């Protein structure tokens, strides 16, 4: 299979993934190629697969420039960087990495809730800067029993609910349609959900419909004591609105793993003590990244050996 060209469109996310791909295929790292247009012209014939992730995948323009593209294998569960309609049109297979990262992302969502409510990062800085010698830290606020509202009750949303229940948090949710087999309280709109919970979590896929699902109205409904947790995608949130709400105190706090324009984070947030800012580490454990890489490689191998794909989307 060494002659099969695989184009990695994102900055290499993981050394193990790169190593495993280079063992089996001819891997092109698009991100570090200076003259991309020239490169594509010269190599388009050999490129039969694309590997992407949350930062870059395969948009319509790229797909158009790759006449022999057969499969897009994403190092993520999110598919927002892939033009699925175009893939469907061309008969291009698409795979992602569901299930293997569900636990890590859900763990991090709870970790963010605890870090924001109990001011873990501030506490750690308080000790390291020597301030504890001058006096006690302040009171924060209890996490157990706070109501948690989840947008999107897929694998990750359900995993978050299960964990939050262990802290006696009442769970409510919003999805496009109410789920009949679920015991949590349903709200038909995000605004209503935000108005009726203390911690709001974004756990849905990013699509045309869910872009800016967290807007000014939702933020105001969540309110000065409310906390927003985003482990979805940056564009789920109207970022300038979020920033001004946090700075003005109209929103109580936020735990954010994703941003509109990663790795750039609005600097107004750096001085706030009621936010926790993470560099998109939702699936960022050694154990999970290896499983994700194995899925990406496994899917590509299956395709080129004419075997059933492991985790197909298309």
């Amino acid at each position, binding site marked *: 299979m060494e002659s099969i060209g695989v184009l990695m469109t994102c900055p290499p*996310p993981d050394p193990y993934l790169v190593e495993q791909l280079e063992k089996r295929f001819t891997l092109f790292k698009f991100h570090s190629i200076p003259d991309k247009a020239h490169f594509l012209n010269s190599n388009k014939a050999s490129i039969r697969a694309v590997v992407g992730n949350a930062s870059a995948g395969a948009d319509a323009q790229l797909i158009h420039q790759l006449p022999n593209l057969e499969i897009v294998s994403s190092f993520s569960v999110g598919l927002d960087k892939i033009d699925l309609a175009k893939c469907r049109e061309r008969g291009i297979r698409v795979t992602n990495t569901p299930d293997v990262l569900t*636990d*890590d992302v859900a*763990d*991090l969502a*709870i*970790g*963010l809730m*605890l*870090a924001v409510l*109990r001011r*873990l*990062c501030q*506490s*750690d*800085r*308080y*000790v*390291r800067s020597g301030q*504890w*010698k001058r006096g*006690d*830290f*302040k*009171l*924060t*606020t*209890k*996490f*157990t*029993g706070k109501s948690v509202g989840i947008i999107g009750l897929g694998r990750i949303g359900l995993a978050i609910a*299960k*964990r939050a*229940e*262990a*802290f*006696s948090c009442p769970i409510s949710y919003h999805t496009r349609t109410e789920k009949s087999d679920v015991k949590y309280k349903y709200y038909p709109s995000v605004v209503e959900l935000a108005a009726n919970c203390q911690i709001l979590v974004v756990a849905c896929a990013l699509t045309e419909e869910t872009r800016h699902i967290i807007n000014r109205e939702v933020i105001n409904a969540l309110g000065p004591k409310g906390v927003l947790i985003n482990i979805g995608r940056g564009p789920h949130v109207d970022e300038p609105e979020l920033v001004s709400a946090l700075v003005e105190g109209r929103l109580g706090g936020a735990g954010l793993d994703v941003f509109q324009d*990663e*790795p*750039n*984070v609005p*600097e107004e947030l*750096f001085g706030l003590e009621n936010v*926790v*800012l*993470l*560099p*998109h*580490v939702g699936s*960022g*454990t*050694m*154990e*999970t*990244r290896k499983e994700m890489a194995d899925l990406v490689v496994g899917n590509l191998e299956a395709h080129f050996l004419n075997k059933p794909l492991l985790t197909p989307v298309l």
Partner: protein
Amino acid sequence: MQTDTNMCVLLKYITWQNRHGFAEECLVSIKRKGKKNPLLSRASVLKMAVSTDCHKAQQDFPKVLILKPISFIAHVGEQHYASNKFTFLKAYDSSLPLHQFLSTHSPSIKAILASVGTPITADILQLLPEVGVVVTTSVGLNQVDLPECRRRGIKVANAGSVFSDDVADFAVGLLIDVLRKVSASDGYVRKGLWATKGDYPLGSKLGGKRIGIVGLGNIGFAVAKRLEAFGCGISYNSRKRKPHVSYPFYESVCELAANCDVLVICCELTDQTRHMINKEVLSALGKQGVIVNIGRGAIINEKEMVQCLVQGEIAGAGLDVFENEPDVPVELFAMDNVVLSPHVAVFTPESFLDLRDLVMGNLEAFFSNKPLLSEYGD
């Protein structure tokens, strides 16, 4: 006219009493005085009441002794610790030597409110023959001479489970922070390094980790219940095996450490647990192991733990307590696999007010001859 004056005085009196919630006691006291000496006119009874009884009322109240300042009271404000059945007597406000202070006030001291740092020894109890109850703001009772209390028939009430949720939450928060590098990567982002230096190093998955709980009391149980929801396996070591618990029990902390990936210290500090977590236990925990301490600093041999961290003998630590607070070993400041907090596991208004309700509830129950809310019984 005399009746009017009487009425004015009586009304002023009752208003003062109502404002301070002592109406009932004082009115009873007036009636009693009037009955004892029928020759006293009503007016003089009332005047006496206004000038002496009311002012004395508070002085007559039974006293609850506090030996050292209690931070839980300071944080919420003394107005939240007020009662119409008793008053607090602060030994630390007096310039008298303690023994003299106690001897002077002993007839009126009916109860003691103690925090974790205030030893209630047989010596102190000996000076207080009227004490009927010791109420603590701590869950642990290591500072109280329990056998002496038992001998004297003194009831003991602790903080029950008011702190369990907050402390358990904090333990889980510290653990996720250490494994997933939450505080470290938050700092990384705030310094603008994500844009310039790239992705932060990977963390370690929580799911599937084997958790060893040291001390399976209310707090230990609350930690276990939470971590089970993350797909963790639970085992424990305690003074005694717990009969109705399905988690595997290990006879020694060392054995527990050898069979788990994370140790969470949830026990009390006693002579037996002091420096119980030492180099041997940490070596058994191993190079991938993580320790979380929300108990007391001295349960861990701090010097040996720091050395283990420096030498990579364990993978990380989440620490809310230290041997000599607020001093923290400086070697820890340079480590990003360590999360530090300034003894704040119970620092929420909810916990502080729940404690206030429990402490005041226990004391008021005692002074009303009702069962205590959180009586400690072997």
